[in-house]
């Protein structure tokens, strides 16, 4: 439908929309996050929900204590290897459609504890992440920005076609491998369907900024 005509109609008190728009509007306007935090980023997440930053303005004030009722997982903090299976299991228990925000340096890559003996190098090794927020910890504004980014992402999704979201595609997995505790590391160390080590040309690594693939 023509955008100009649509806004013209709206000015006259007539709302014209499509099913896709309505569907996406419904999904994006009531993202219910899962109520859990892993480390200091969770404090910023809590701050974002309280009166000063007021995440409720964007429809995400209902933090659910059960994964069965949540749409959004905010991985807020360091994921230790001991905690990783539980995080993946919680994600698996969430119903589709579900989204993940990886909040802070630790949840993205391990952050300052990357070389630690018990720190997972990013939750995206096991579950698909929609929005990454860098920062240590990110400010509440950054979390709100991530929310807006996720809402924008949902808004732009098509309900049909090859690029339709995972929950509308029966062939796509909605559960992911829960790692098990090995003798020295998690088994497997990564879910290769979700994450692959980025390619880097080792022969010139660290020598030349351009030319990296």
């Amino acid at each position, binding site marked *: 439908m023509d955008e100009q005509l649509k806004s013209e109609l709206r000015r006259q008190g007539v709302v014209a929309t499509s099913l896709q728009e309505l569907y996406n509007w419904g999904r994006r306007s009531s993202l219910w996050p899962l109520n859990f935090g892993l480390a200091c980023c969770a404090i910023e997440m809590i701050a974002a929900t309280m009166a000063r930053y007021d995440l409720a303005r964007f429809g995400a004030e209902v933090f659910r204590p059960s994964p069965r009722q949540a749409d959004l997982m905010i991985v807020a903090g360091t994921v*230790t*290897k*001991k905690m990783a299976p539980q995080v993946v299991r919680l994600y698996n228990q969430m119903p589709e459609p579900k989204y993940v925000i990886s909040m802070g340096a630790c949840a993205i890559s391990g952050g300052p504890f990357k*070389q630690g*003996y*018990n720190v997972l*190098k990013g939750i995206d090794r096991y579950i698909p992440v929609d929005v990454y927020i860098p920062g240590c910890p990110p400010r509440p504004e950054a979390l709100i920005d991530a929310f807006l980014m996720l809402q924008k992402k949902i808004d732009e999704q098509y309900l049909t076609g090859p690029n339709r979201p995972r929950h509308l595609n029966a062939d796509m997995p909605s559960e992911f491998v829960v790692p098990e*505790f*090995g*003798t*020295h*590391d998690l088994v497997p*160390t*990564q879910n290769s369907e979700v994450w692959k*080590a*980025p*390619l*880097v*040309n*080792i022969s010139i*690594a*660290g020598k030349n900024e351009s030319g*990296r693939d």
Partner: protein
Amino acid sequence: MNLEEIKSEIETNVPGCRLEIIPNGSPSGQHSLLVDADHAFAAAAYLRDAPNRQFDYCSNATGIDWPIKEVSTKVKTKKIVDGVEKDVDEVVKTQTGGYLEVVYHLFSVELRQGPLVLRMRTEDRAERIHLPSLTPLWRSAEYQEREIFDLYGVMFDGHPDLRRLLMWEGFEDHPMRRDYVDPDDYEYEPTAHDEVLKRAQAHVAAEGGR
């Protein structure tokens, strides 16, 4: 609080106890008391219960790994070379370490004193790694001793619940030991260098080159 006094007090009250004062050369001058493992529990009990000491609070317990290390020191000696006496630098090699150490910080809230730094050492790093647990004396040591067991592998005899704390059940090795080799979960680094570059190259070679 005089460490010499405490040392002689323990020596008279705990017969057979071998104590040593480990000096601290830094400006804080926080010298510590090394106690032998066999009498450590009795000595600690004395420190807690003696009316003039009353160390009623254990604020901290931690572990240290001392691998075997060769230390060479230069010693000036006089030697007769070709019939003439000369000053010669001689390198003396000595071995230190080869044990695990546990450090406790004790305070007396009652007498406003502390910290008293108490140390214990195991005999080696592989087999004879048993030390007495001080948890029966200070409950605050319970989790910290579990952590030391987890990360350094010190076995605390008399601990009520000696399980791993941070790592999972089934994990092998003790990650805070100096010779711990972490799992090879190589990952891309934008500025790979030194050790990371070597590991990255090994991985690339294993994957068939890039």
